[in-house]
């Protein structure tokens, strides 16, 4: 039995050692990443200058045509992340500031995402490879439920989010396999789908009165002399009358309501996401209203 216990201890030590080595290898791979996603592009970058930075969820990623800003002479990048919440948008901005980005304007898509303050696990996971290398990321996750496991247990974060930062992603990152996420200056235009889902029940959705991460973004902009523009972006005809956007306006009077700038379903790929054509109409209006560019 003594032999077996020693043998078991050996296995435990080997397992821990393997976890530490794999953790180091994966982290090293992600630290070299430049061309796969928006998070690593910011984390692994140095100071940059932008006229406009776009933040938010897929409703930012699919709605703000960054090239149209560039065409008007505004250096722009769309950092909207599909599936992301304000938790990730706030962290993204913090990282930019940490890397001494010079930003004149931040456009934040703030509407449906005001209804929660929790992280979007799949997206937040993309920051985790850098948790030991960035104090900003560590602090941002500090109050999360599983922070201790994520921070102290070697390789735990890569196991927990293996679909996002597991072997496949680490391998493709290590071999510098490019994705299309950074194409079109971060904007991802959607096609009009014949069978696109044009239903989205937001009747019972309520914006949180003082969304922690919305306030964070607002305060960061204020502290860094960045012009902060927050907008609600359009949704399909089906949600008209569900007054969610009115509730947002009531709680956050400074957020501009663009719900009705694009209304017809022919401009939508799904209820919450405009098609490329709709996004162009919407972006043109934003350029006109906030930058005086027609």
């Amino acid at each position, binding site marked *: 039995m003594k032999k*077996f216990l020693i*043998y078991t201890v050996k*296995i435990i030590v080997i397992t821990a050692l393997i976890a530490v080595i794999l953790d180091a290898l994966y982290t090293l791979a992600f630290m070299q990443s430049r061309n796969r996603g928006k998070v690593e592009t910011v984390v692994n970058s140095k100071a940059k200058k932008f006229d406009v930075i776009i933040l938010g969820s897929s409703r930012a990623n699919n709605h703000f045509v960054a090239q149209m800003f560039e065409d008007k002479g505004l250096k722009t990048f769309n950092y909207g992340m599909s599936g992301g919440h304000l938790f990730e948008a706030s962290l993204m901005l913090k990282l930019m500031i940490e890397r001494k980005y010079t930003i004149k304007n931040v456009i934040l898509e703030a509407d449906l995402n005001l209804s929660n303050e929790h992280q979007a696990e799949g997206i937040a996971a993309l920051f985790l490879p850098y948790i030991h290398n960035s104090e900003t990321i560590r602090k941002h996750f500090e109050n999360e439920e599983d922070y201790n496991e994520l921070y102290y247990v070697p390789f735990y974060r890569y196991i*927990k989010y293996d679909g996002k930062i597991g072997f*496949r992603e680490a391998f493709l990152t290590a071999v510098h396999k490019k994705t299309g996420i950074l194409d079109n200056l971060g904007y991802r235009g959607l096609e009009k789908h014949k069978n696109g889902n044009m239903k989205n029940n937001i009747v019972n959705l309520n914006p949180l009165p003082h969304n922690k991460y919305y306030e964070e973004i607002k305060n960061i902009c204020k502290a860094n002399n960045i012009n902060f523009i927050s907008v609600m972006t359009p949704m399909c005809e089906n949600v008209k009358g569900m007054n969610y956007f009115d509730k947002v306006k009531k709680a956050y009077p400074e957020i501009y309501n663009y719900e009705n700038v694009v209304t017809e379903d022919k401009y939508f790929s799904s209820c919450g996401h405009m098609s490329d054509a709709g996004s162009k109409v919407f972006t043109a209006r934003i350029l006109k209203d906030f930058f005086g560019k027609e």
Partner: protein
Amino acid sequence: MFFNSLAFAIFLPIVFFLYWFVFNKNKSTQNALLIVASYYFYSCWDWRFLFLLVFSTFLDYYTGIQIEKGKSEKSRKFWFWLSILVNLGFLGIFKYYNFFASSFSELLNTIGVKASPILLEVILPVGISFYTFHGLSYVIDIYYKRIKAEYNFVDYSLFVSYFPLLVAGPIERATHLLPQVKVKREFNFQTAKEGIYQIVWGLVKKVVIADTCAVYANAIFDHYTSVNSLSLILGAVYFAFQIYGDFSGYSDIALGVSKLFGLDLLRNFNYPYFSRDIAEFWRRWHISLSSWFRDYLYIPLGGSKGGIWMKIRNTFIIFIVSGFWHGANWTYVVWGFINAVYFLPLLLSDSNRNNIDTVQLKFNFDSVRVLMNIVLTFLLTCVAWVFFRAKTITDAVLYLKTIVTNGNFSSQYLDNERYNYELLPMIALFVLVEWNNRTKVEPISGRRSMLKLAIAIAVIIALGTYSDYKEFIYFQF
């Protein structure tokens, strides 16, 4: 509590410690501890069904004794049939009642009689098919005087409820397990080490092979109408490895865990995908179930004795019943039927026991033929697996039809945001490792076992699929 869960990783060392350091005085204390641990293990799923398990155990224990004590044949028969009917009755109610009720109602509707079935709102107790079969084999063996009844209730309970085999087998025989629980177990370092190897290899099969294949197989099967021929073929292959990795992985872990407690369980898988024909496949796949049906259904029905029609009838009966054992769905019945059809030519040509040795390959034409037979057998099983995996028979038929009619064999980006071919290198490597170790129980033991163990652990940590967690498939049966 799954074998690949954190809860089990805590449960197992505690039971191990108590078993060898606290309750190691004699076999009674060892058995008592294992019973308590097993009942706790089972109650982690649903404590309410613990009563069913205890009742089923008591029924077979009691009827077993009554059969043995029975002075007249009439009395023996009475207790025998009581046990059979109650056991099958429970199985029927929990597993098959709703299926039969809705199928019968559909049949009536088809012939114009309007009927709506009265369905029961019951969930299937975990492991019912397994522990019922334990009990049945025990009672049948006593009735036919192959074994003596067990008079020690704790020992008998452990035979039925032993936690490594409780929820998904292997389906043990009283002749194999009961003699082991009747004696005090002494710790054996070599056996325990083998147990660790088997657990680790089982985890490789489950979290690396099965769960990763599941991500791709699900993406393909769930969207089979919108993917191309190559994806559909790969989907069937991925599912074949998913179910193999899942179930044989479970069995490996069960056998490995049991070795830690000094108890040897029946081997359930013997590299089935290296079979040269379907008969060999069924001697290597879910061995404990196949042999159960052979001994308690096929042989009592007459087996291969009698005329040709008798042989054919018996073959179809055991394959269809075996399919139906897996679940209350016509897809399983068809899966069993297809396997019977595969088996038939071998039976008729009396060549179903041609391949009973381990496959050996050399550089000659005969080896090419053997290799082709292995590939052909695998492809045939893949076709049958489509019926096993599909939700309905129509889905399975359309799935197979689309493979032929679509005709597009290019790479494809699937709904899970992965390319359809991505898993092939991993599967090829897995097959290679298994092929090179096909004479052993698992590939870790032997020379440089510590290095191989470390590699296997690294593979589990690095390549396992954890976020898209999958339960063991056979738990639902």
